[in-house]
């Protein structure tokens, strides 16, 4: 090993010396050329003027250190709220988070009194509500958003109509969530009678918020699929539609999946539009299309707005006055956990279909 290194070092030295002679030749040639050139060009500029001075280099080093400290501090400042939020939610949430809390709804819960099952009510109905409403929103917005993105990237490349759509999508992504809720509420009031409220109505409201995110992220992902691959597919006599489905979408799939997961994570915590559309009940409703449905964010809001219940002296030892706020924190923790699980599923799908992972 050592000898080989030495041999290599020698050969490098040899190459260097050869390069040296070559360079010397080049210098001679260059000076000849310069002598010839000087007849045409004026005098050579004084390059030593452009060299950075010692003081400047010192100053640069200091600047670099100061900036490193500032950037580090900014990172810490950004992390503080995040860690504090997670810590508070976990610390307050775990107190009421148990199987009983996850498997019962709020029916039959009176004040701070324990229920016959031994708990203080639960969020089973809200978990079901959140999952169904979000799934409904996904079923609406993924096909619409994805097809819109395909139209923009594969068919209408930069046309006037495409520009108008892009603009509208960007405007749509700025719609306040309460306005989306109001829209869904009015739409269903017109279609199904005034004041109607059901889970699917909430899905429609959420999908209005979700579609622009899905469109924008999918467009980005489809654009980075190299044109080489489209051409390779066309050159094999494959039609445009099959090229899009089997080559372009397949190649962009991991990115599209992560975009959809991000879009879901954005809408799953929406409260205001769901308060208006999906409503709030204490019992479990499995039917997305009929009757009110509680979702986790709405549950968190409702419980937190109660803050506490009064325990009469006759209530005895089992009555917990602060139970609404405790339930609220536990439900918030469950919501965070669901988003986390969604992210993990997204990662898994990404890894399964990613280009590198198949190596």
């Amino acid at each position: 090993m050592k000898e080989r290194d030495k041999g290599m070092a020698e050969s490098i030295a040899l190459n260097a010396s050869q390069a040296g002679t070559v360079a010397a030749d080049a210098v001679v040639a260059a000076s000849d050329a310069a002598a010839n050139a000087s007849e045409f060009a004026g005098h050579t500029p004084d390059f030593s003027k452009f060299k950075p001075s010692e003081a400047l280099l010192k100053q640069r080093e200091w600047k670099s250190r100061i900036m490193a400290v500032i950037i580090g501090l900014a990172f810490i400042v950004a992390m503080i709220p995040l860690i504090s939020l997670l810590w508070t939610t976990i610390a307050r949430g775990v107190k009421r988070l148990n199987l009983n809390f996850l498997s019962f709804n709020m029916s039959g819960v009176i004040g701070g009194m324990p229920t016959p099952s031994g708990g203080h009510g639960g969020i089973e109905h809200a978990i079901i509500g959140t999952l169904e409403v979000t799934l409904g929103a996904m079923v609406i917005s993924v096909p619409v958003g994805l097809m819109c993105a395909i139209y923009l990237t594969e068919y209408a490349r930069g046309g006037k109509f495409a520009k108008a759509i892009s603009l509208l999508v960007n405007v749509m992504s700025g719609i306040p969530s309460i306005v989306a809720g109001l829209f869904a509420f009015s739409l269903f009031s017109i279609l199904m009678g005034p004041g109607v409220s059901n889970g699917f109505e909430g899905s429609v409201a959420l999908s209005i918020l979700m579609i622009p995110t899905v469109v924008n992220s999918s467009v980005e992902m489809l654009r980075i699929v190299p044109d080489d691959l489209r051409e390779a597919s066309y050159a094999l006599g494959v039609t445009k539609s099959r090229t899009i489905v089997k080559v372009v979408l397949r190649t962009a799939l991991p990115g599209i999946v992560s975009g959809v997961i991000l879009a879901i994570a954005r809408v799953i915590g929406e409260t205001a539009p769901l308060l208006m559309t999906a409503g709030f009940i204490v019992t479990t409703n499995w039917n997305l299309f009929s009757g009110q449905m509680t979702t986790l964010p709405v549950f968190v809001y409702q419980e937190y707005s109660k803050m506490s219940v009064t325990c009469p002296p006759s209530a005895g030892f089992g009555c917990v006055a602060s139970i609404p706020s405790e339930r609220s924190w536990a439900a918030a923790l469950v919501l965070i956990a669901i988003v986390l699980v969604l992210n993990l599923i997204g990662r898994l799908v990404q890894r399964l279909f990613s280009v590198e992972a198949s190596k």
Partner: protein
Amino acid sequence: MGQRIDVEHLNVYYGDFLAVEDVNLNIQANKVTAFIGPSGCGKSTVLRTLDRMHEITPGARVEGKVLLDGHDLYGKGVDPVAVRRDVGMVFQKANPFPTMSIRENVLAGIRLNNRHISKSDADDLVEWALRGANLWNEVKDRLDKPGIGLSGGQQQRLCIARAVAVHPQVLLMDEPCSALDPISTLAVEDLINELKRDYTIVIVTHNMQQAARVADYTAFFNLKAVGKPGHLEYFADTTTMFNNPQNEEAERYISGRFG
């Protein structure tokens, strides 16, 4: 067997810009025809009109005729998708599908078209195409590994295997070796020499030695000035082209006294 291509009065446009003007060219069956010429003279553009890949570019269009064995590729009712099954293409940059294994890449032309193929037929086709591309011995033990895991030269031969697996009559190659090292280039050139038994081959190259090595006929494209349309300056068999060209511009280009 390969088929001949006759190009008659071909004008190629990008939008309003006339890129190549009045090309008349007879490409012999089962021969290698090379397109050479300076950058921007339209050799790749003309190549891409031979399998109707040109019109993928928005605004691009063509006037004139391209006859594949007597049938006009630009005739009424001709499906460009069907044309591309008869006329295969290999690109400058090797472009295997990154999501597919070596085996799937070879079968891409069939699988992407939703045509069913039994496993034994698929095995036969994969071996035949990879042997045809001189790649079988290098990859036969790792057919299920991704195509992009191969070296540049192997990737380019994989693309050739993918192109011949749909069994075209003509194979177009757009500077297939420009991104390859000399050894891989040699492998691809040897392959071209073998492929011309079964296919008519048209190759665009910037490398005149390569044209001299592989081509039976050579077409020299030129342009009068930047911004002016390119045109076919001179067409001859390769020996004449490189030893005794009967065209001043071609002679200047070949002997390196160009421009």
